[in-house]
């Protein structure tokens, strides 16, 4: 066999031009078509699945070379190619349209890709997304769903899942695939968690998300919205009715800055701002009833993905936007692609600034933010970021809107109501099987990790589903 010819450069995906996209919330990246997807898939050197580094890099261990192979094997029959590829993906991940869009692939599957050593890594995320999108448009996912459903044999067990975010959705879908009767309890009026209220349309269109969520119903999962577990129903009550419970309540409580002026008008937590924009569609006010008050000059504090999402959303609402971060450019935690998009769209960046005071006008509206200038040290913290110290120098930047995106912590309603063992930061303590201090109650995602990523939450959901299956089988065997 001839040595494979390496194609070093990835096949690009088209994007909407900047001038066009900053005026609306439509998706920025347009994705591959079949021909370019096959071309990109052909760059893969097909490492054997036992040691393919990309599979190890994926938190849910999708057989990546396997689905790429399926794509190129039927290059003359797109429908067949996509169906086979999707079948491979679904074995490990039931939300590929979501993960293909929002995963930080550069830190996960694409980071260890062998092709990345000689050129660009394979564009795995975009290929995963292509398969999901093409299948949805052609109804191929429907056929496959029937196939999966047939293989689900009822186990007679039932599981309650608390929270319809990435962790809960994955856990529910995996359990449904195993034949369990699953009910999801969700506090908001729509399922999806951060995928619905946090990530904007221009990164994850809500119509696509909703179609993905319809799989739940088709696999027989019931979703009860408007249920606040801890208030509407307790964990104890759920344990009486279900064989096991999975907690995927996330980390949804915003950290706010404990500095003067935090209650001034037009200072939003990123969660409030993004919930109004994404879940409530305040950008369509007054067609939609929820208002949002955004000025001409917005400062976003923080530099994670949430900060980028907030900044780019504020920009689309017609504001000039500056991101102020207390560390440097290389310390930013947001995805590189999203930082790049934000820069292209005209978001300005100010580094080494820590807010010390919000200054209001006579009407109680924010008018400026006072920052202390920071300086980096050589020393690094636990997460490998450079430590910073104040310089004693200050600078004041004008702003009529401020969005705080400095992080989130778990919501305490459930922990307080149910007596879970938790860490001081509110994250639930779990064992190696993701079981909490209450027997039969498992947890995963941000509820145990603090603020992390969608795909790690999904990985936990999948792991917990396996542990729950084992737990219920054991329980029934002992009964």
């Amino acid at each position, binding site marked *: 066999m001839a040595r494979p010819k390496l194609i070093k450069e990835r096949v690009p995906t088209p994007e909407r031009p900047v001038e066009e996209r900053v005026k609306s919330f439509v998706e920025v990246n347009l994705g591959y078509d079949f021909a370019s997807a096959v071309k990109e898939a052909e760059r893969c050197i097909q490492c054997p699945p036992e040691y393919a580094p990309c599979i190890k890099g994926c938190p849910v261990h999708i057989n990546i070379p396997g689905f790429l192979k399926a794509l190129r094997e039927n290059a003359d029959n797109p429908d067949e190619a996509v169906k086979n590829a999707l079948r491979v993906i679904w074995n490990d991940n039931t939300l590929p349209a979501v993960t293909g869009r929002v995963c930080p692939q550069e830190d996960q599957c694409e980071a260890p890709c062998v092709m990345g050593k000689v050129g660009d890594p394979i564009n795995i995320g975009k290929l995963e997304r292509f398969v999901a999108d093409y299948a949805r448009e052609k109804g191929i996912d429907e056929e496959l769903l029937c196939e999966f459903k047939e293989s689900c044999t009822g186990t007679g067990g039932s599981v309650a899942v608390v929270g319809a975010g990435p962790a809960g959705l994955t856990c529910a879908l995996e359990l449904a695939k195993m034949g369990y009767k699953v009910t999801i309890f969700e506090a908001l009026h729509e399922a999806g968690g951060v995928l619905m209220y946090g990530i904007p349309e221009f990164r994850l269109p809500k119509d696509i998300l909703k179609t993905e969520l319809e799989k739940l119903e088709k696999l027989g999962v019931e979703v009860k919205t408007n249920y606040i577990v801890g208030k509407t129903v307790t964990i104890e009550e759920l344990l009486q009715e279900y064989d096991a419970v999975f907690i995927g309540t996330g980390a949804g409580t915003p950290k706010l800055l404990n500095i003067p002026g935090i209650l001034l008008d037009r200072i939003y937590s990123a969660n409030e701002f993004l919930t109004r924009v994404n879940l*409530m569609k305040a950008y369509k006010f007054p067609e939609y009833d929820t208002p949002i008050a955004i000025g001409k000059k917005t400062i976003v504090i923080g530099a994670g993905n949430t900060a980028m999402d907030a900044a780019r959303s504020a920009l689309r609402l017609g504001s000039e936007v500056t991101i102020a971060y207390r560390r440097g450019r290389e310390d930013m935690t947001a995805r590189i692609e999203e930082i790049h998009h934000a820069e292209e769209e005209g978001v300005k960046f100010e580094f080494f600034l820590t807010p010390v005071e919000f200054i209001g006008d006579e009407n109680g509206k924010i008018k400026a933010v006072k920052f202390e200038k920071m300086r980096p040290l050589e020393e690094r913290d636990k997460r490998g970021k450079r430590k910073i110290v104040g310089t004693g120098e200050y600078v004041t930047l004008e702003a009529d809107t401020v969005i705080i995106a400095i992080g989130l912590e778990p919501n305490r309603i459930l922990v307080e109501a149910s007596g879970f063992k938790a860490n001081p930061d509110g994250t639930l303590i779990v064992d190696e099987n993701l079981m909490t201090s209450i027997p039969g109650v498992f947890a995963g995602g941000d509820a145990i990790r603090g603020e992390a990523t969608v795909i790690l939450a999904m990985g936990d959901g999948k792991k917990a589903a396996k542990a729950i299956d084992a737990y219920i089988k054991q329980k029934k065997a002992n009964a």
Partner: protein
Amino acid sequence: MYKILEKKEIAMRNTWYKIHAPHVAKKVKPGQFVIVRAFKNGERIPLTPVMWDPEEGWIVLIVFTRGKTTARMAAELKEGGEILNIAGPLGNPAEMEKFGKILAIGAYTGIVEVYPIAKAWQELGNKVTTLHVTFEPMVVLKDELERAVGRHLLETVPIDMTKSFPENMKNVTKRLTEKVRELLEKEEWDLVFMVGPTGDQKAVFEVVKEFGVPMKADLHPIMVDGTGMCGACRVTVGGEVKFACIDGPEFDAYKVHWDELIARSGYYTDMEQRAMQEYMRLMQQAAQGGE
């Protein structure tokens, strides 16, 4: 989807909804609230169950027609129809203790939130006097309160149609503070509790403070999710930032930063008016089109 079992206008701009919502009816306690989203493109608004039956699975909401969402509910929701979303119960229940002699005040439709709490306090052995101050055509729950508590006082203020609504509201505030002063001067009280517009709560608090009587207030900041995930409802209480939806809604009136709260409640006034005007325009258009 939650079925509307009854809908009726019980006073000027006050609509009574009896709704099938067993998940809330089973768990709700006095002092707790729900978040309602009535329409597909609608907003989420906090409302308070006034009465409920855990067995039959219904709750009663009494809603004051104040802006677009409440106006649209009054105009478009029908008995036998449905409300899209009701999440709850939310917030902390009111403290249920034997405080002694309690003055529970409701300004305008605030009295509907006072009702379940006052009733429960009375049943617990407290001596409860409720005071309802409102405009003459807006009296609600008079008979129910007379039955539920030791003494129900009603103070009505006429509406002067030649003057603006804010002008008329000043008269309510005046009557409210006068009456509270009179009651505090004449009698001894162990606790004052109040629900009403933040400005009126502050005005009453200023009077109560002179007498040194403990006071609690149910706060009404802007809310979005009602579950502690956004901080829209943040208030400063005792110098600390609290989220009213999970730490409240009831707080010690002596610790609340009233001026800040008053400022925060006016954040969206312009947009609220715009939403209402737009709605009125569409309604007029529809009415003309229908002829």
